[in-house]
């Protein structure tokens, strides 16, 4: 038979059913013959009941809402917020719609980037209505040349200036109108008022 000192070390674990099966058997065998250890085991059992009885029941009214409120006030890094927003969007609207949104965003970006070229393309038409009054040095030089020499000529390319004039059109000789495809503009030149 095992000694009381050895068994007493295992009594708590026996009470908790945390011993190996062979140890449980050994302690049970000892307890059947030892009043002292049986008394200790009884004390442990009563101690457990007493501890449970004095444990206060936590006051949890409003606990979870308080935690949620704190969690919602937490500062989040911008990247995390964007990531979470994107994840929520992807979850709520589905990946298909998310992809559609992404495609639409790319399309809009393309249109924005391509607009100058689109204007340039439109300016090549026979009667462009888009005009930009330009008063820069290059335009003024070209306009002077055109107004003095070849205002009635239908087309002209001035290679000396940076303005690539492809077309002149004006019924009024005091006004010069020409298009500059390279710059994507149509220039209207007006003389200074007296």
């Amino acid at each position, binding site marked *: 038979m095992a000694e009381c000192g050895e068994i007493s070390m295992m009594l*708590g*674990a026996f009470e908790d059913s945390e011993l190996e099966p062979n140890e449980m058997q050994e302690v049970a065998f000892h307890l059947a013959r030892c009043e002292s250890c049986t*008394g200790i085991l*009884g*004390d442990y059992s009563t*101690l457990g009941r007493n501890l449970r009885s004095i444990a206060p029941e936590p006051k*949890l009214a409003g606990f*979870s809402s308080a*935690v949620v409120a704190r*969690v919602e006030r937490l500062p989040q890094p911008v990247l995390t917020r964007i990531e979470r927003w994107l994840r929520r969007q992807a979850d709520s609207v589905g990946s298909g719609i998310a992809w559609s949104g992404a495609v639409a965003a790319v399309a809009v970006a393309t249109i924005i980037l391509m607009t100058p070229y689109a204007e340039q393309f439109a300016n090549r038409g026979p009667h462009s209505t888009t005009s930009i009054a330009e008063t820069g040095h290059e335009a003024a030089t070209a306009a002077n040349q055109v107004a003095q020499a070849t205002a009635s000529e239908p087309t002209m390319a001035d290679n000396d200036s940076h303005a690539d004039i492809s077309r002149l059109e004006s019924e009024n000789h005091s006004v010069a109108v020409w298009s500059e495809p390279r710059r994507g503009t149509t220039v209207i030149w007006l003389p200074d008022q007296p």
Partner: protein
Amino acid sequence: MRTPGRQDGDEAELIDRSRKGDSQAFGVLVERYQRRVVGVALAVVHNQDDAIELAQETFVRAFENLSKFESRSSFSTWLYRIAANLAIDFWRREGRHVVLHGEDADEEISRLPSSRGDSFNEASRSELSARLKQALEELTPEHRAVILLREVEGMSYDEISEVLQCPRGTVMSRLHYARTHLRNILKDVAGS
């Protein structure tokens, strides 16, 4: 009460939604584990107001660190571990020894069935209650935590080992020490 273990599908989804910032989903998890998280904190600090404050902090920390939680382990054990660490740190920092608030404790003890041959039978029950509270105060937080997690929260030795991050053998020896200590004190009360 839920027993700790690997999370079911519902819990995994709640955790996933919480990771994405869904505070309402996290609120469901809080409701699910709040009592036991408070219990773990209470086992260490032995003061209800402090325990509730620490439990709130536990959940906030858990929310902030959800990305670090590995789904292979139990979510509840992970939570209890945070609570135990915060509570032990708090106890060491504050070094408080506050009497446990249990207004109904005396009444509860008076309702306990008496068991013949117990050392406790001879002690007056109100004195027993007061002495037991005092005896708990005399334990170190580690010993108190082990015995309260076992006796009040009903945790297994393996769970206690995980929560307090100590070997199972340490859990057993601490429990043995705490039980022997409390029993001796209560025997003194019974003998006086």
